[in-house]
Every structure is written in structure tokens, then in C-alpha cells.
């Protein structure tokens, strides 16, 4: 492991490897990435693998739209021959309440103004897309056919390989113990494998990012929340889009592999990575009601992961104001995987002090300025 680096990235999830790749691609030498376990151990490897552009805020829409452009051309962008199993069969978002249906009208208008050509559907039109959908009490749906799915492990691997090809050093099994700060400037980083001298550290530690913040004496406005999820055995393709409802609190999709992945948001904040039988039972009730043929599927695995929640459910991609050389890519609130390609480019802009590639406000100062526009569409 190098003992001197221009930038040290903490975290081997999709965000960390995307930042590493984009820095190296911009010509930054001696980039080092540290991962305590193995690549995609945390939220990336535990997520629902969805890629959605139907968001309720301008920032999330732009980040998702630009990320999809990269997912579509990933082999050319990364110059690596790894199939990330990208599928575009849409997201079907269901509205069961008036409030939700009104929100969908606003969202679709916003999305359309940003070049995301989503549309509203009647319950019958939703049934055309998912014939076995239970449309009882359904008011309508929003749909965009360019949303979809990608394999988080393979995408992380592809970015990591691309970064390594450009000279990035990726260290797995290396734990960050402390960060050396002198006169509010980053000086280096203590790891389980020795000290690395550096004046730039990127916190991309996902569910553990608040702990990294404490190492430089900063209280970050994020917390980690357990979300549970399960997968079934693979079967022939019967479900094209990701089906999702905010009020009914569920998301469910069939991956190109054939397995179904599904989950729902927790009712209480729990910090743990253990899965529960209560989840399995409630999930079974939800999914067999909404998508009845799923009752004949076998569940093979359930697990849990962290959403790193920010106050407005939008990422914090920013310099840290209190400590010079400390950068944040945190608070992805459950949609870090799908936004990572764009986030890597933005963090590269911030570190190199370039103008941001896109007109978005993701700095940490927005909370103090009271510029919070909360993302309304999160499960």
C-alpha cells in the first residue's frame, strides 16, 4: 500500500469507485481507495438494484438522467468488458391516494421539463404493462420505460477495474482508524495497514459515514437506517418494470437473472444489519396482494442494509466547510447506486475546483441556508 496519496477515498461501494475512476480519468495521479471489507460490502451490494429517473426534485432527476446515459454506454465509458446486466423495462409507480396522485402530476411535469419523458397511466393502462397487477383502489400510475435495473456488484467491479487500469490503488481489507487533522486541514490517515500522508480525503463510507465524520471532529447531518429486502429463486420473465408504491410501501422487480427482488421501508429507525421474520411475513402479504402470481415463488434469501439518510433525502456531494481537504459523498437516502455515475463526475469537479458539470445544489451548506426541498418519492 502506498504511504502517500493525492486523494484517499474511504469506501469501496459504487460511490467510492465512481469517484476514484473519474479522478483518475481527469488525470489525477496517486489516488488510493480504502475499503474495510470488500467491494460492495455495504449498501451497494445490499440494494434493490433499481435505476429510476422518476424523481420529485430537480437535482435527483438530473443526477439520475445523466447516470442512465452512462449506464447505457458503460462499456465505452469505462473501457472494461464487464456486462452490468443493465435492463430498461421501466418503473411503474402506483398511486393509491389523492395526495399521491397529485404529487405524480407535479413530478411528471417536472420530469418532462428535464427531458425525462415519463407519463401518467390509467389503471387499465397500467394493467397493459403488468397484466396481473391488482388494480383495486388504484387511482393511476406513472411510468417511464427508460428506467430499469443494473447489477450493483458487477457495476462496482467494472468501475473498480476501470479505475485500476488508470492507476488507482484499491485496497480491500484495510480499515481506517483515524484521520490526522492539523489547523483544520487534512494531513493524513491512519489505517490498519499503516499511515498514508495526504491532504485530501473523500468520505464515501455510506452507512458508516457519520463515524468517519467524527474522526475529523465533524457532526454530519446523516443517520443510517436499516432497510430489509429479499430475493426469490429465478423464474421465466413475467414482470417487466419495477413496480413501486409509496403509500402501500413496497417495491418489487424481476432481475434479468430471473429472480425477484423486493422490499419496503421500515416503520421505525433501527441501526442493525440483521434481517427479521416480521419483514418476511409482511413482505409476503404485501407482494401477494399487489402481484398475486408471486405467491408461487420461493423466497431463497433475505437480508438488510443501510440507507444513509440526509435531511432532504437528496445526496450531500460537497466540500466540508469545517475541515479543509475533507470531502463528502454521503446521505444517498436509498438511491446511491443509481446516481453514482453522475456523483463521481461531480465530486471530481469539486476536488479539481472546476465548474460543476450540471446545475445542481448538493453542497452541505444548503441545510444552513434553509434551501431544503425534500424529495417526496422515497420508499
Amino acid at each position, binding site marked *: 500500500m502506498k504511504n502517500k496519496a493525492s486523494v484517499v477515498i474511504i469506501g469501496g461501494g459504487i460511490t467510492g469507485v465512481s469517484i476514484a475512476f473519474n479522478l483518475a480519468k481527469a488525470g489525477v495521479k496517486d489516488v488510493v481507495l480504502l475499503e474495510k471489507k470488500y467491494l460492495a460490502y455495504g449498501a451497494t451490494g445490499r440494494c434493490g438494484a433499481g435505476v429510476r429517473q422518476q424523481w420529485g426534485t430537480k437535482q435527483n432527476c438530473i443526477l439520475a438522467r445523466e447516470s442512465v446515459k452512462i449506464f447505457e454506454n458503460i462499456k465505452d465509458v469505462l473501457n472494461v468488458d464487464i456486462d452490468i446486466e443493465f435492463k430498461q423495462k421501466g418503473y411503474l409507480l402506483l398511486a393509491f391516494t389523492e395526495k399521491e396522485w397529485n404529487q405524480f402530476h407535479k413530478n411528471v411535469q417536472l420530469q418532462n421539463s428535464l427531458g425525462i419523458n415519463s407519463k401518467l397511466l390509467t389503471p387499465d393502462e397500467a394493467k397493459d404493462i403488468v397484466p396481473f397487477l391488482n388494480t383495486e383502489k388504484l387511482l393511476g400510475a406513472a411510468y417511464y420505460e427508460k428506467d430499469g435495473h443494473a447489477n450493483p456488484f458487477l457495476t462496482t467491479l467494472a468501475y473498480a477495474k476501470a479505475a485500476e487500469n488508470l492507476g488507482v490503488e484499491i485496497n480491500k481489507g484495510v480499515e481506517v482508524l483515524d484521520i490526522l487533522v492539523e489547523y483544520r486541514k487534512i494531513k493524513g490517515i491512519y489505517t490498519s495497514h499503516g499511515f498514508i500522508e495526504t491532504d485530501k480525503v473523500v468520505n464515501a463510507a455510506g452507512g458508516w459515514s457519520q463515524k468517519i465524520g467524527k474522526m475529523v471532529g465533524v457532526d454530519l447531518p446523516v443517520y443510517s437506517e436499516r432497510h430489509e429486502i429479499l430475493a426469490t429463486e429465478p423464474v421465466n420473465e413475467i414482470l417487466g418494470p419495477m413496480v413501486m408504491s409509496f403509500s402501500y410501501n413496497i417495491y418489487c422487480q424481476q432481475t434479468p437473472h430471473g429472480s425477484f427482488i423486493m422490499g419496503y421501508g421500515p416503520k421505525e429507525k433501527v441501526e442493525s444489519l440483521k434481517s427479521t421474520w416480521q419483514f*418476511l411475513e409482511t413482505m409476503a*402479504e404485501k407482494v*401477494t396482494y399487489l402481484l398475486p402470481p408471486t*405467491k408461487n*415463488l420461493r*423466497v*431463497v*434469501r*433475505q*437480508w438488510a442494509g443501510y440507507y444513509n439518510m440526509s435531511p432532504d433525502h437528496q445526496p450531500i456531494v460537497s466540500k466540508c466547510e469545517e475541515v479543509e481537504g475533507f470531502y463528502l459523498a454521503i446521505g444517498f437516502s436509498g438511491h446511491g447506486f443509481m446516481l453514482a455515475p453522475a456523483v463521481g463526475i461531480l465530486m471530481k469537479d469539486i476536488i479539481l475546483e472546476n465548474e460543476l458539470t450540471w446545475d445542481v445544489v448538493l453542497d452541505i451548506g444548503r441545510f444552513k441556508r434553509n434551501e431544503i426541498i425534500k424529495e417526496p418519492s422515497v420508499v
Partner: protein
Amino acid sequence: MNEEKIIVCRCEDITLKEIRDLINDGYTTLEEIKRITRAVMGPCQGKTCGPIIAREISKITGKPIEEIYKPSIRPPFGGLFFKEIVGEKDEK
């Protein structure tokens, strides 16, 4: 013995060659190989392929098998139909 024809993971049809290539490529933990290939993620949860892959890692890296084989078996431990969980109320 043709390692391309030896199936290590019967749930996902992963061959011995695929496993060996990944180990030689630097993926020397069961967790990584699981995430890349889906071996160990099928209905059997790696009861068959887990020890075989661990042995291969041990052979190539020289690490003791106890250090490699620490499987995280996830609930519900064996395949379970959703209908078994919710009951068959609606099918009388």
C-alpha cells in the same frame, strides 16, 4: 479433468474454471465470488458449492480453510413459497 465441464454451483451453473479464474484475478474471499457469480446465492445457499469454492481459494492462496469458509447463511435457510407464508386462505 476438464475444469470447464465441472459444475461447482448447481443452483447457478458455475464451473470450476470460472471460480479459478476469479481467484487468480484477486477475488480471494467467498463473499466476493458470491457477489460476482451468484454462487452460494441459490436455493441451497451454498451448502454444496461453499466448501468447494473455499477449498479452491485455500489451494490457490495458501490461506487455511477456516479463515476462508465463514458462510453467512441468510434466512429463511431453505426455499419457502410466499403462499406458505401468507397461508392459502383465498384458494378454497
